[in-house]
């Protein structure tokens, strides 16, 4: 999916994209959660949504802002969200999700329903004041929240060594009196076990937990970034060869005798076909309905917008060809 959508951006078919290459093991954390646990992401957590059952079609529809995009085409690509899957819509300003996650967890605690919140963020975002406020409040209020830091070595061009001088992000959790664990972020099982234990602590004892997962961002930061300007190709290649979560998982399965090369080829082929089909389908769909242009700024449309909508509706009815009405979904 990442390769296809990355290429689609390069060809100008979508405006923006961010891949998760090198950080695929993150999916292990999703597997350790209850599907009703509420997730706050940063933007590089498509794996969590995938694990929860967000379909390839849904990913594609969001990136294409078409009529089936649940966000009605109002957000940049990759800013996914799904109310059914308990995944908060991604917001661009960094780290704002961290205190929000603490607040959501506090609300959950008051409800007493034995769920928790999981909040993902990068080591760069952890420099923001919101990170510190969010952790301290979660600790003092006893919020059932798992803070999951993806320490992937870079924040756009800034390497971790220039982001902080302490012992990573984990040392900060200890300072706030938060149970903290650092895991190999390229080891899916380590992540799974750590998250499972963290969830137990959060849900049973109403405590926050901080997980720092050490990994490497193989991707460029986004399609607006060319990382060769600040790191060598060799560094990236070395990482991909030496310590890649997918390669490690594959080798592990094969060593166990649970996975064959032929199966690998077959599964990869099938996945690729499914992605390409979802991609082609999404591209063919119509744009969101024109009537959606007026909704959701407030719960009820303000009188001025009601007037404007009536005016436009009349025009569309009169000149359907000029306004290419057929390119859009049916208005309500």
């Amino acid at each position: 999916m990442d390769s296809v959508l990355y290429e689609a951006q390069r060809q100008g078919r979508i405006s923006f994209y961010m891949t998760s290459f090198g950080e695929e093991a993150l999916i292990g954390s999703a597997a350790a959660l209850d599907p009703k646990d509420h997730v706050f992401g940063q933007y590089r957590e498509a794996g969590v949504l995938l694990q929860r059952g967000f379909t390839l079609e849904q990913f594609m529809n969001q990136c294409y802002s078409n009529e089936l995009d649940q966000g009605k085409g109002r957000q940049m690509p990759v800013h996914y969200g799904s109310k059914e899957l308990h995944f908060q819509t991604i917001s661009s300003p960094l780290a704002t999700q961290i205190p929000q996650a603490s607040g959501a967890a506090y609300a959950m605690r008051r409800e007493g329903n034995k769920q928790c919140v999981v909040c993902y963020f990068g080591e760069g975002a952890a420099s923001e004041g919101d990170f510190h406020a969010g952790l301290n409040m979660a600790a003092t209020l006893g919020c059932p929240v798992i803070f999951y830091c993806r320490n992937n070595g870079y924040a756009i061009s800034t390497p971790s060594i220039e982001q902080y001088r302490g012992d990573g992000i984990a040392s900060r959790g200890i300072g706030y009196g938060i149970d903290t664990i650092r895991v190999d972020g390229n080891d899916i099982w380590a992540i799974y076990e750590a998250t499972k234990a963290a969830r137990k602590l959060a849900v049973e004892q109403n405590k926050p937990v901080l997980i720092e997962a050490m990994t490497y961002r193989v991707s460029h930061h986004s399609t607006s970034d060319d990382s060769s300007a600040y790191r060598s190709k060799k560094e990236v290649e070395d990482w991909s060869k030496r310590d890649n979560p997918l390669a490690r998982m594959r080798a592990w399965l094969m060593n166990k005798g649970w996975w064959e090369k032929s199966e690998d080829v077959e599964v990869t082929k099938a996945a690729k076909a499914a992605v390409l089909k979802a991609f082609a389908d999404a591209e063919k769909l119509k744009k969101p309905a024109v009537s959606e242009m007026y909704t959701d700024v407030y719960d009820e449309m303000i009188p001025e917008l009601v007037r404007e909508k009536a005016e436009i509706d009349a025009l569309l009815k009169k000149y359907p060809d000029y306004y290419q009405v057929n390119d859009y979904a049916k208005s309500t």
Partner: protein
Amino acid sequence: MSAALKSLFKTPAAARLASRSPRALFGSIRYNTTVAGEQITVREALNAAIDEEMERDEKVWLLGEEVAQYNGAYKVTALFDTPITEMGFAGIAVGAAFHGTKPICEFMTFNFAMQAIDQVVNSGAKTYYMSGGSTSCPIVFRGPNGAAAGVGAQHSQDYASWYGQIPGLKVVSPYDAEDAKGLMKAAIRDPNPVIVLENELMYGTSFPATAEMASKDFVIPLGKAKTMREGTDLTIVTYSRPVAFAMEAAELLAKEGINVEVLNLRSIRPLDLDAIIKSVKKTNHLMTVEQGFPQFGVGSEVSAQIMESEAFDYLDAPVCRVTGADVPMPYAQNLESLALPDTEVIYKQVKRVLNIE
């Protein structure tokens, strides 16, 4: 953790960093100059202004996120790379300014400066007053402002009216290369906190460099508007990128015998009310154009001040505000362009105000 993982987090970059101080790096960057007669982009003009002022005054230095590696997130010169903490580095810049240096604090965009606005407004702008004039804050906050292209609701806002409200701040918004160079140099030399609201979509646009611009002392006075085009029928007051649209509309209207005067505000605060009054007295019609939201915008302020001035009696029609649409910026490209004023909207509105077919 695997050995490979360990190495990344303890790289020899520490050694590299240790030798990096603002001045230490100065010798290695390309020095930007302005040559009269040549074309110069807004980006080059800003770079040249900063380079010249750093050369001129030891106390001037630059900080921001994503700046050192890229020569600025938007390839404008910068020297001191910070962790991602807008509130933090704005506070550091304010503190360094209190202590007598002259920081230029660069935001990746003013949209992210919202995280730091307490430092800018409550400390940067007010300390001089609250300290009885004993502690000044000679600082420049700069960065791209307003809509870029296709970056949705959270990256596209115009903050001119936000900062324009604050006593203690000066706020400028350059349009072309001349504005960029002259206003940036003036902002750096000014002893007050100055906000420079740039426009990302203008960075790559070229303009001819004049002989005056080539001078190392080319500064544009803060608080003075520039008449971009003389006219007799209607005054358009605008700033930043829409100046281009106003000029294009004026060009079209001229072909129909309508003479529009275009005022480029340059400064949002102080506002050059005298220039607007003078122009309105001549044209008897006023229109404001901005990309920001309509309510409590720059146009609202201009109309209110004109209403309270002697120019009110000279108006032959109500003031017309052309602004961005009153919705969060849509992500879709077609809706985004419809949400922003362009040449056509200005052209039509001028005719409407003048009551011409």
